[in-house]
């Protein structure tokens, strides 16, 4: 009776041991497999409803966790690895953007707009793996390093007036996140070149060779981003993305419908980049091009009764894809179709030139975020004003949520305001469909860090709850305009001061995608990013606040004013002390010659005084 359980236990133990051994072996095998640095390159093309085309470049370099990180590298950029080591970064995102993402036309409810639509200028945030007391100092050093690395004025984020530490409005963290934005930073090739230098092939080969500068910078939107994640278990993963919205250059191209077909231009890679793709970067593990056909078109194709293949009733892709994928959104509804091309199969003799040709004129629209958020200034004059933020329903909620009475939609607002715009947070007012509402009805949670003069920017994180039936909500905040020291004005101060974009996120809406038909062995970092949990976000406009500018010639006026007063004082004093006018008068009577001389002297003196007066008036 006793034996069976004992043997069973032994057997169990043995099998456990075996399992452990197997697991260990498997772990070591995966460790061996993962021990190499990898690089993948991908490009996603998508026609946009407003006759434009979106190109999204995605490059991923990964380095396994190793003791030699930062010192010995094969593919991974040494500079980034050393940066991560030196500043103990666990996450970092740096984006350079020119132009504004059009949430209405280009989408507001998909992974592209959620992850890759960025505010104009530079945005930098980082999460540090450091004690809280050391983070600010590390951030300052980091901004200087990045500034040198990317040839940009990121070092302006060094000052404590330029960065903030949001707790939950931007991204949930334990106080180790720092966020800073420079809305006025101009972005150009000098920022792209160092970014390309981090790729093993730079723009010499592979997908990055499509980056023909004149066409990239001619676009409507251009956002270059660097995102890195580092951990003890995963090593460092560096994602470099470049998102551009271009107008296909098809003026000389053949139009299928020369009269009625002007609705959508047919384009190919060559029209977008003036180049074809002639092979991959040789050290890349995988190199792929995707063409994404949005839900709006897919629905139309379905309506037309045809199968969504690369050649259907509505459009035809110029090259047959190697694979096609169906994309499902988070509600398991098909959202769009993806066509994949493996660049491995193409070379300089047989370049890849994917394009789309429309067979029928087509109008479609993209999926939008539940609310269209925008921000504007109210008031006039140089003394005070107010910031208003409006949320206009896009009607999405009608489709998604049943409009019962107690239904509500959450929105999180995060905004950073420089100290010279002194926001009175108590003056927050909320209007829903034009009616003023009590704050407590709408604001669920609010966290404000008030600004301190020349020390801290004002940060506001706010969780709002809107009723589902709402059409328009408006929030207003009053502010006073501060005065800056004469040295603190930037060149061209009369242009005004930029307030960085506010971020509005909708935590109940998720833009993640899934690909049920995809082969489990098919690994694409681009699609992995799309699969990640993505709360729908949108950035508002940058505000331009005109501040009182001083007369910059004022110091000189003061100098001349003071000097004139001093000159008058000393002149008259010396005159009074030195000259004896009574005696001179008598002397004049005595000698005519002397009188003449004296006259000349007086003349010249009055002349001098007159000149000084004129000089003074000139300055005034």
């Amino acid at each position, binding site marked *: 009776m006793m034996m069976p359980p004992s043997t069973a236990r032994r057997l169990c133990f043995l099998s456990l041991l075996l399992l452990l051994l197997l697991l260990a072996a498997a772990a070591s095998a995966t460790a061996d497999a993962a021990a190499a640095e990898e690089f993948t390159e991908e490009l996603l093309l998508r026609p946009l409803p407003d006759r434009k085309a979106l190109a999204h470049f995605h490059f991923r370099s990964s380095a396994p966790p190793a003791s030699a990180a*930062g010192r010995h590298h*094969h593919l991974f950029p040494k500079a980034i690895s050393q940066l991560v080591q030196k500043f103990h970064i666990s996450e970092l995102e740096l984006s350079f953007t020119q132009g504004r993402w059009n949430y209405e036309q280009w989408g507001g409810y998909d992974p592209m707009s959620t992850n890759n639509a960025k505010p104009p200028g530079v945005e930098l945030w980082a999460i540090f793996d450091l004690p809280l007391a050391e983070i600010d100092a590390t951030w300052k050093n980091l901004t200087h390093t990045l500034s040198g690395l990317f040839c940009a004025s990121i070092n302006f984020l060094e000052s404590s007036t330029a960065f903030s530490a949001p707790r939950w409005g931007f991204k949930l963290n334990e106080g180790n996140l720092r966020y800073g934005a420079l809305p006025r930073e101009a972005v150009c090739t000098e920022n792209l070149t160092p970014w390309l230098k981090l790729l093993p092939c730079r723009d010499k080969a592979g997908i990055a060779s499509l980056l023909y500068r004149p066409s990239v910078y001619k676009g409507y939107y251009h956002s270059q981003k660097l995102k890195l994640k580092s951990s003890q278990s995963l090593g460092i993963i560096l994602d470099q993305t470049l998102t551009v919205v271009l107008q296909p250059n098809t003026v000389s191209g053949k139009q299928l419908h020369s009269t009625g077909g002007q609705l959508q231009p047919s384009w190919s890679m060559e029209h977008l980049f003036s180049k074809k793709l002639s092979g991959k970067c040789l050290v890349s593990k995988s190199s792929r091009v995707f063409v994404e056909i949005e839900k709006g078109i897919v629905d139309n194709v379905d309506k037309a009764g045809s199968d969504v293949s690369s050649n259907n009733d509505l459009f035809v892709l110029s090259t047959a894809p190697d694979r096609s994928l169906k994309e499902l959104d988070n509600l398991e509804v098909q959202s769009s179709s993806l066509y994949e091309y493996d660049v491995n199969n193409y070379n300089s003799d047989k370049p890849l030139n994917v394009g789309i040709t429309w067979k029928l004129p087509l109008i479609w629209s993209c999926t939008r975020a539940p609310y269209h958020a925008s921000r504007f200034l109210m008031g006039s004059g140089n003394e005070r004003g107010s910031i208003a933020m409006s949320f206009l329903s896009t009607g999405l909620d009608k489709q998604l949520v049943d409009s019962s009475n107690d239904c509500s939609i959450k929105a999180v607002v995060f905004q950073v305001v420089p100290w010279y715009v002194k926001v009175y947070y108590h003056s927050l007012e909320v209007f829903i469909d034009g009616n003023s509402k009590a704050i407590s009805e709408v604001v669920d949670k609010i966290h404000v860090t008030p600004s301190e003069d020349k020390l801290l920017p004002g940060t506001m994180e706010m969780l709002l709850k809107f009723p589902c039936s709402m059409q328009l909500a408006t929030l207003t905040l009053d502010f006073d305009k501060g005065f800056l020291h004469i040295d603190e004005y930037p060149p061209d101060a009369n242009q005004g001061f930029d307030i960085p974009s506010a971020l509005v996120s909708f935590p109940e809406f998720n833009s993640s995608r899934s690909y049920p038909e995809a082969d489990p062995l098919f690994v694409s970092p681009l699609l992995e990013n799309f699969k990640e949990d993505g709360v729908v976000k949108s950035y508002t406009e940058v505000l331009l606040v005109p501040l009182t500018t001083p007369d910059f010639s004022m110091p000189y006026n003061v100098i001349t004013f003071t000097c004139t*007063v001093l000159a008058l004082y000393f002149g008259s*004093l010396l005159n009074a002390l030195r000259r004896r*006018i009574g005696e001179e008068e008598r002397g004049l009577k005595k000698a005519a010659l002397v009188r003449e001389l004296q006259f000349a002297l007086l003349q010249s003196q009055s002349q001098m005084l007159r000149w000084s007066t004129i000089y003074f008036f000139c300055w005034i």
Partner: protein
Amino acid sequence: ARKMAEIAGDETPPLPSSSGAEESSLLSSPPSPTAISGDEPPPRTRKPGTKRLVLTASVLLSFLVGLPLLLKSTEIHRSPLPSDAIADLSRRLQSHPPSFPCGLHAVFLRSGPGSPVASLADQLERAISTQHHLLPASSTAGNISVSVTIQSGGGCTSSTAAASPWRCGLLTAADSVRDDEVFDELLHSALGGRDGDGMKVYTIVIAEDDDGKGTRVVIGKHRHAWVVGKVDEAEALSLIGNVFIKYFMNGGIEEGETGIGKGEFMPVGSDGNVVLSFSLLNADPNDWVYDWEFKNIGERILTPVVEALRPVADINIESQVLYHTPKSSYSYSDDKLGGNVLSMGDIPFFVNSNEWHLDTSISATGRSKVLQFVVYIPSARECPLYLQLPDGELSKTNAFISPMWGGVVIWNPPGCSVGSKKAHGTRRQMSSQELMETLEIFIGQLRQLFGLKPNYHAQGMDVATKFLVSEKGFAQWELDLLYRHHACSNLLSCVATLESLSSLVQSLPRMIVMDEIGRQVELSLEAASLAQRNATLGIGDSSAVSATRARALAEDAFFHPSIMSISYASVEHYFAIYME
């Protein structure tokens, strides 16, 4: 402005017209009897009135009262710099440049029986001592104490000088026929087996051995050399002097050659840090892509070198692989040599700074130095690529250095020949043997960058000379030489920096000098005197360490960020500012 206008308006007209009123008031105040006499007033006889004096004095007084206030308000903080101590150190260095005393120990191994005569040792010692006037003036060596030991079958006799570390009888002349490496270690153990602190003693062993192969000299990895063969006394003495002065003291650098102690800079950052950045450049990955296992092999080979150079510099090693990095000079195809040839004149254009993004390292912060070592893999079109020396010969190492920048090795992948086919992007690994060979070339280049010879030819010696190669890349006697020169040059540069800082501070009376600068200067002086003291004791490595520290502190003080503040202005500018 209106007020001003009033003042101006009031002031301008009265001058000519009010003279009458002025006159009356002036005349009425001091009661002057002469004024009444009418048309012809006599000149003034009395002194001016007290009123005017009081007025003048009050104006003057207000100025005098205001002056200290003004000076007080414009006072700036200046930490006192020990300029006397700096001048003193500089004088000391000029009058007595640091010199390291060292010892020369000659050992004669005689095969014959019988105890050697004691007086012979003393006689030999005197003979060797007289040769040292040969020492060139530029050498950093100071006093040389000579001692001689004679060992024969019957025992050892040492000259009167200090107790020699020689362990009598451990080694005989017969041992010298063994392998040189083995004999080197035997000799090392016979000499006490340690590299020792304190004064360095160089040993030259004369092993009398009549095997008929002729005389040869071997210079070991430690601080000794030996001569094997049948040499008479006079010849032995001249060999001892030659080896000691030429190699142990001067590193084999001839007069007129560039090298250590000949005005060459050490490629070490002023904070004592050096980053060795190794890059593998694939000129055209479309042809072939090579990778290397640098992490294991490179670290293994380079770690002893890094350890050996630690007193001179703190060395960090990095490596990376880059792609699409063509060279920027032209090579031409030479059928006779069977490859593409790059002539010496094209080398200055070889490094393609546009495409080779070698990058400085984040770990090389501040004033530290990056030395780039580059392996260039030619593309299929230009493969094999050879460097041609000016005399038409091909370079043996296929490598060149650029002083203070680093070195380049052109590595032709195996099996590449003119017209070899493209391998179409196959990824290959550089074999460990090839990597080790490349690294050996790099170590030679590093030696050269530090001012030593990459390898020795027995030039100027009339007997065959062999040099044993240390796995550290540097033999112990070479390291001694490096330490000595490094200590000297760092001390001199430290003093030069301190002197210029001191004179800068003195020449700009309005310059703010932070307390931190003063402290750094004091610490630097302390380290410098420590280095000097160690030098007089003959401890080269600690002297080098202190000298590096002294220089780093001096540079820190000189380049302190606060020195760049605006109060650099001249006195005129300063008055102009405060007149506002």
